[in-house]
């Protein structure tokens, strides 16, 4: 018992109820159990640890791997039979036949558990299949139990009538203390990760291994990350990345390990910036551009600054990303024109882009329209489709100099489409082609800045 609790920390209640339900020895199993809970709450870990502990015969079926019923049935059968490798099984009926044949070979009332991980995938299959598995025990003479593990709640499965309700167990999220406890268990691994990748003096190594240091770091880390993210896996990953940065000044003998306030001042901006990378899994260990510590260590070899790293750096913010395209001058204006065409209503074009658009007659309707509702803004409803004619008209309106319409210019539109900045057909059919700008405001304002153009001035929403 104790070892299970040690292996699966902070899940005592769930472990107990699962253990109770499954019983021991040859006691009858429940018909089916439905286990739900948010991602990364230890559902599969609990189930597998318990089944290993009880030494029940069990088959794990990952519903992503078994994407057709046939593969799933065959996975079940090959999991049950130890020796036979190849079994053909096409339909539920054959599965039942095989299970019944299996039961006749059985002398005792051996418990068998089928675990369906990511059971939400069942919804992509015929509904009968899950209905049948929920009450599998009624169809075959085995002491069999089906466990469904999923991040969706039972209501989301939308069964038709006639489903036997399974016993439901819910896994709540880990709270802050539990997250702390769980990540803290792996303190040694974090330190090892650190010492393996850096050259560390012996004296400092001892300091790094102190649990207080890690505990302090975790407290600071969770105070920033707990709010937007509760996914243990992601938090663990981010903690690993950031712990290295936390310890950098200690390794370089700049800050003492027990100078908490200095360490906090060092890590706070780093945590803020790495918050932006949550879930994105961009490894920034080599290029810590925003880190103030950066200036102090130029010893990072310039050779390691390869293409991969530059790409990562460019992905860090929209601005650098926009600049990374290095578009030609006219292409930038074309892109801006495309953006304006997508986000402005066509009937306002005249007023926006022409010098002598005449006086606007103020009608009640327009006054009303002026009180814009934020949810109805074009920038929030998404880009609209525009034609090539309109794009070129806006392009010439915003471009101060006069240039001719050359094939070169048209080819640049095709390039923008190719780069996935504009959606549309690649070949330019001057009459029928329709386009849509698919870059965001941040991107376009970064582009506009490089050519000294104010996008906001020409957006209807901001007038």
């Amino acid at each position, binding site marked *: 018992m104790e070892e299970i609790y040690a292996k699966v920390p902070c899940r005592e209640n769930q472990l107990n109820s699962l253990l*109770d339900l499954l019983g021991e020895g040859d006691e*009858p199993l429940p018909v089916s159990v439905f286990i739900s*809970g948010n*991602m990364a709450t230890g559902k599969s870990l609990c189930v597998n640890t318990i089944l290993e502990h009880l030494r029940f015969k069990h088959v794990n079926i990952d519903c992503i791997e078994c994407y057709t019923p046939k593969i799933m049935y065959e996975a079940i059968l090959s999991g049950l039979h130890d020796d036979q490798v190849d079994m053909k099984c096409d339909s539920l009926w054959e599965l*039942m036949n095989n299970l019944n044949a299996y039961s006749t070979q059985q*002398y005792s009332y051996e418990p068998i558990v089928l675990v369906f991980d990511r059971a939400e995938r069942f919804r992509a299959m015929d509904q009968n299949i899950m209905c049948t598995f929920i009450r599998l025990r009624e169809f075959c003479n085995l002491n069999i139990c089906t466990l469904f593990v999923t991040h969706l709640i039972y209501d989301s499965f939308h069964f038709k009538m006639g489903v036997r309700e399974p016993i439901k167990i819910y896994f709540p999220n880990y709270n802050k203390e539990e997250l702390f406890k769980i990540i803290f268990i792996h303190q040694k691994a974090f330190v090892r990760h650190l010492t393996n990748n850096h050259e560390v003096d012996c004296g400092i190594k001892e300091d790094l291994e102190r649990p207080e240091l890690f505990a302090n770091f975790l407290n600071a880390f969770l105070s920033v990350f707990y709010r*937007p993210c509760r996914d243990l896996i992601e938090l663990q990953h981010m903690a690993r990345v950031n712990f290295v940065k936390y310890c950098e000044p200690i390794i370089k003998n700049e800050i003492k390990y027990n100078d908490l306030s200095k360490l906090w001042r060092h890590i706070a901006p780093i945590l803020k910036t790495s918050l932006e990378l949550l879930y994105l899994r961009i490894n920034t260990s080599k290029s810590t551009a925003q880190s103030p510590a950066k200036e102090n260590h130029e010893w990072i070899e310039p050779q390691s600054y390869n293409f991969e790293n530059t790409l990562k750096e460019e992905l860090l913010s929209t601005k650098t990303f926009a600049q990374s395209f290095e578009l030609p001058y006219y292409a930038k204006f074309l892109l801006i024109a495309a953006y304006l065409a997508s986000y402005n209503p066509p009937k306002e074009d005249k007023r926006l882009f022409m010098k002598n658009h005449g006086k606007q007659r103020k009608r009640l309707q327009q006054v009303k329209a002026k009180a814009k509702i*934020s949810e109805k803004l074009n920038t929030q409803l998404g880009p609209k489709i525009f034609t090539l004619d309109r794009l070129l008209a806006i392009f010439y309106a915003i471009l101060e100099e006069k240039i001719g319409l050359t094939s070169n210019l048209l080819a640049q539109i095709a390039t923008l489409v190719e780069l996935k900045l504009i959606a549309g057909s690649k070949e330019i059919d001057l009459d029928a082609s329709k386009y849509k700008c698919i870059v965001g405001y941040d991107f376009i304002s970064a582009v506009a800045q490089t050519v000294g153009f104010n996008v906001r001035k020409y957006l209807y929403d901001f007038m």
Partner: protein
Amino acid sequence: MHEINASQLSTQIKLIRKYLKLKIIEDNITFRDHASERKHVYELITKAVLHGESHSALIIGPRGCGKTALINSVLHQVSKEADLVNDAIVVKLNGLIHHDDKVALKSITAQMQLENAVGDRVFGTFAENLSFLLSCLMSGTDRRCKSMVFILEQFDMFCHSTRTQTLLYNLFDITHSKQAPMCVLGVTNRIDVMELLEKRVKSRFSHRHIFIFPNENTENSEVKSPLSNCKEMLVQCLSMPLALGRRDLPKKRKGRKSIVSNEEVMDIDSTDSQYSIPEQILTKCRTDVKQFQHLEWAFLEDWNSHVQSLVQDQKLVDSLEKLCYYTVNEQIIKDILFQTVSKLSPSKPYIDAIELSNTIDETVSSEQRVKLLQSLSILELSLVIAMMHGIEIFDGQPMNFEMVLHRYTKFANANSSNQSVPRPVVLKAFEHLQQLEIIMPSKSTDSHTLGDTSTSRVQKEYKLYTLAAPVHDIKEAIKSYKALPTEITHWFNNTID
């Protein structure tokens, strides 16, 4: 407690636990109430088996009211009275598994044990195949033809709306044309099942409906209250047969069962017999009765009185009443009892009334959606609130990410104490909500994505979503959310800003 030491207690408890689990999970024969319906079904089957008459009937009743148990118990009884193995063939089909006609026919062949006779023969039509099977039964023996009992569970699944109902047509046709004595029993929970039948099928059906409704006792023509029914079931499921503990019983024979001696045992204590598991079930589960002989009679008596006292407990009665208010599904009640029994352990040898009522509460109103909402991070919950407000203002119109983000940033800027979160993280949180199906893509955008040209596709920021969680669930979740910042509660309560 009697003078039982700890090790004895633990074996006693384990045996009781196992016995009760077996009884709750495996016993699909014991059937209570509905005497007249049961008699009706019993007559139909015996007429077919003994007198070679043909019948068809539909047994209709809500889920978990004991339809299958009724048939099982009737078959059990008939098998005791007649030679069911030699006189008749029982073919059981389930709509979930055999909804395909070809599969059904294969299964029929297998259950008639005629695979060899059919061999590699190829049949033109379904009817040809079926009549061949029947003729196989007729030849070979000198008697006319074996009676057949067809039991079609999930009958509604056989009524395909798209394909023709060949199987049903043929089966009902045989009951009409008297080719062979056959009894076709359909079991379903759909009351509108007749509308699903084809015209030609409907005309061949005998229109014999047997309705089973829970809590209806036609025997003495008074309606039993669901509560008393539930109590009865609780006692029935949890009580142990005292006969098990009697040492002076004749030793039961090992291995093969014999019905006669089984009934002898039953006769010893007829009130007691209703609490024991039928022998047939035990052999099916390959469980030897002998292992239960270590049960002490005194202990069992103690146990039964404990169960009786449990039913008297006012708190428990209240929660049972609540349960009946929600459901009368016997399967659910059995599941609850199973969970309760599985909590028995040597350190906790009695059923705790409070625990039982907790299990009931959890089953009837588990509120998993509320719990799911509570498991969201504060950022995700804020997005849900933002979306809820937006939908409230615009009267149920779906929203896209940009609108939600706009509302969220408006809130975040107003509260300086809030940590600002970068846009990609918010987008990720939004996608997370979508994965948990708290928000669902609205139908209208789906149809757009079908026309899959590059310009008509919508970027994910502009895809429209509706909130799938009802407002009162969100309210509930926020009310009991642990350590929720006050400004969020405040924001939630101030709808229009």
